[in-house]
């Protein structure tokens, strides 16, 4: 299935959870967060959240700023 992750198209196996995506891209420790289709996906629910084709995922982390 194809999703948009941080503005780029990405192919993922069907049934991929947000936790699996986070573990591969950003790490699942403190400091990262994700929104799916414009809504915050709380980290406590990542393991149960199965992604679907066409979704837009934004994965953010803290960086120098402000």
């Amino acid at each position, binding site marked *: 299935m194809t999703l948009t992750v*941080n*503005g*780029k198209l990405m192919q993922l196996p069907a049934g991929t959870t947000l936790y699996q995506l986070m573990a591969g*891209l*950003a*790490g699942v*420790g*403190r*400091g*990262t*967060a*994700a*929104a799916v289709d*414009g809504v*915050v996906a*709380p*980290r406590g629910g990542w393991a149960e959240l199965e992604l679907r084709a066409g979704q837009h995922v*934004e*994965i*953010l*982390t*803290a*960086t*120098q*700023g*402000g």
Partner: protein
Amino acid sequence: MADDTFTIAGAEFDSRLIMGTGGAPSLAIMAAAIQASGTAMCTVSMRRVDTATPGSVLDMLAGCGVRVLPNTAGCRTAHEAVLTARLARDALGTDWIKLEVIADDHTLLPDPVELLDAAELLVADGFTVLPYTNDDPVLARRLQRAGCAAVMPLGAPIGTGLGIRNRHNIELIVAEAEVPVILDAGIGTASDAALAMELGCDAVLLASAVTRAQDPALMAAAMAAAVTAGRLAARAGRIPRRHHARASSPTHGTAVF
């Protein structure tokens, strides 16, 4: 000045200098500046992981022993700012947020309508909201009434180093504030930070003045000294300005030659 701490939403700080972490050439230089500043709280921005190194800035700040204050820099609407604040809360485990809602890239000035809207939404959602605001006493009042934990008026637009362009407005904001007033943005050099404190601000937040200085750690030390000096002067009570001279030496007993 351990006897002169200040408090935001029940949290006590022994430094009245808050540091932004943007603009430093490297994390090592940023860390040295933070140590030299004596600050107890630093801001961070939330960005896509593919344009940032995950965790590194947080590791650096943890090593410095400072509190992390996420911001909503880059947001243009209340909707974007609220979503970014919620992501920061989930990522960092803090409900404190430096709220920035910027109108355009040219001025980087806050959009007052979106800012107030975002502040109301975030307060209702349980956030401790520290809004970066225009130097407008009426907007500062509205933000305070909305439940913000501090108000953070600009001295001048972000990154300009123009100092405090409207000191009268800063004094008006200070005069009626019941929450801490933190001068945020526009600081160019140490005297600007001292002036902010002399005008009655509770603290100063700055980034570029230190991170883009030729010697960031040295400028950080200068800012720390300036904030302390300005605060002491504000507490001491300055003499009134006079049109004409007033002798400081005794006028009686002068010799006649």
